[in-house]
């Protein structure tokens, strides 16, 4: 299908960030970032607060288009069709129909569990009950939540625990069959047990979907990701296999961060 090598690895590529700059008004938040996203692998974005990792993640699904004064420069090319996600001629709605996102805090809609999962289908105009029922079971199973909620699909989503809510949001994101799943610090509002279950889930999901995850937690990056990108002050300092980044970083700044000397 796609034999473009993925940067340092000879793996199929899913997306590549090319000469990417991002501006909030006149402030440049991201400076000339280039990096690949390998197909069906987990790539982690790490770095201290304000380094631009969330900004980069939110550029993938054009979230910045919702606010005025934001400007993209460069490209994020989605493979295999090589669509530039940042092209102004590409509708952000199209981008968001191909890529899904899971947010920092669980953000279920104040609707039933069922309605939350199939919201992507509702938006697309799918209303056939049997299709929706199948979708709900499939997505909740993928998100390891089906057994816990199958008897209460029509309860309000906010009756679930925090960890369950986040898995519901993952199910909601998976139900649209995204090509890339974006995670923006998905466990920062969760307790350690819920965090462990989300991490386990991410490991399972990479069989099916390419994952980009922003995390504050370096152990998490080391545990769940295949590749890691270290960002600092809007620049990509180092990108490589997670094992290599954590065992023998090439850059002094990466080493300082991962050994806990700052950040």
């Amino acid at each position, binding site marked *: 299908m796609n034999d473009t090598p993925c940067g340092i690895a000879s793996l199929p590529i899913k997306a590549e960030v090319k000469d990417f700059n991002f501006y909030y008004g006149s402030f440049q938040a991201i400076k000339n970032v280039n990096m690949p996203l390998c197909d069906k692998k987990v790539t982690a974005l790490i770095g201290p607060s304000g380094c631009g990792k969330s900004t980069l993640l939110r550029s993938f699904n054009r979230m910045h288009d919702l606010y*005025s004064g934001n400007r993209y420069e460069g490209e994020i090319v989605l493979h295999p069709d090589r669509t530039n996600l940042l092209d102004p001629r590409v509708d952000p709605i199209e981008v968001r129909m191909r890529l899904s996102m899971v947010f920092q805090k669980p*953000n279920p809609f104040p609707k039933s569990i069922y309605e939350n999962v199939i*919201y992507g289908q509702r938006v697309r105009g799918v209303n056939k009950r049997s299709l929706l029922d199948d979708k709900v079971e499939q997505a909740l199973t993928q998100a390891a939540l089906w057994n816990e909620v199958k008897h209460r699909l029509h309860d309000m989503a906010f009756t679930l625990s925090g960890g369950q809510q986040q898995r519901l949001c993952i199910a909601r994101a998976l139900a649209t069959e995204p090509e890339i799943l974006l995670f923006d610090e998905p466990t920062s509002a969760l307790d350690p047990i819920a965090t462990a279950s989300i991490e386990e889930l991410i490991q399972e999901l990479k069989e099916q979907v390419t994952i980009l995850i922003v995390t504050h937690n370096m152990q998490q990056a080391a545990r769940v990701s295949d590749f890691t990108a270290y960002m600092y002050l809007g620049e990509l300092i180092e990108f490589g296999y997670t094992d290599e980044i954590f065992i023998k970083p090439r850059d002094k700044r990466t080493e300082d961060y991962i050994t806990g000397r700052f950040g």
Partner: protein
Amino acid sequence: MTGTTSVQVARLRTNIARRKLWDLLFALLGILALAIGILTIAVLFADMLINGWERLHPEFFTHFPSRRAAQAGILSAWVGSVLVMLVTAAVAVPLGVAAGIWLEEYAPHHWLTDVIEININNLAGVPSIIYGLLALGLFVYAFDLGQSIRTAGLTLGLLILPIVIVATREAIRAIPQVIREGAYALGATRWQTVKHHILPYSLPGILTGVIIGMARAIGETAPIITIGALTFIAFLPPAPVTAAAPFISFEWLQAPFTVMPIQIFNWTSRPEAAFQANAAAAGVVLIAMTLAMNGLAIWLRYRLRKNIKW
């Protein structure tokens, strides 16, 4: 630290007691302020209730006004108030809610929207008589809508429009941004986000604002007098439902009318004590109508908010 003596402890306690005296003083002042406000209103209302009590029997609601105080009722006034409120709601709700949604969810943020925002807040403070003058010139003379229920409804609709817009905007602003982003991230359009999320989640707040606006409008006298409502009216507007096809009639919109506050004003200006009792009784009814609307607002908000949580 280790050798704190009983003298030091005693000094500490005197110090605390002295500072807590101010707590007590302020609490008393607060209670006094509250009591003055509430008692004044309670006394006024009790006085009105005592004066009007004898007149509050069923015929009071089913009789037209009359030259004989004992037979006079508020039929034309309460029917007029209810019909004017219907038109007011029909005007203010769609316009106010749509304007509020546009300002929050669609409008770009630049100087023009800032100007609009400042003006809406100013409109809420414009004296109601000014709305009456505007309506007299525009609706009665320029548009030739007559001194009718529709003119009154349009006028009061404009009067409470800023209240509805502000309530809508505040209700929308209470929706967390992550909920909006969640919808957009799944590929929703702006309208889908509004229809599936923004409107349903802001509905309790919007309804509350609408009802509070209506409760204000139902007591308005000045703009209604300005547009020329009748003070003595002994017939009802044509019924909205008719016996012959098409069974629905909007003729009532063009009918002359009176409303509760005008009826009260009319009776108060009569010298006879019996009419003063009528005015008091009508005042009690008007307050009951207002309280009922506010009660409805509280109940609706409570019911609808149970299903909204983030």
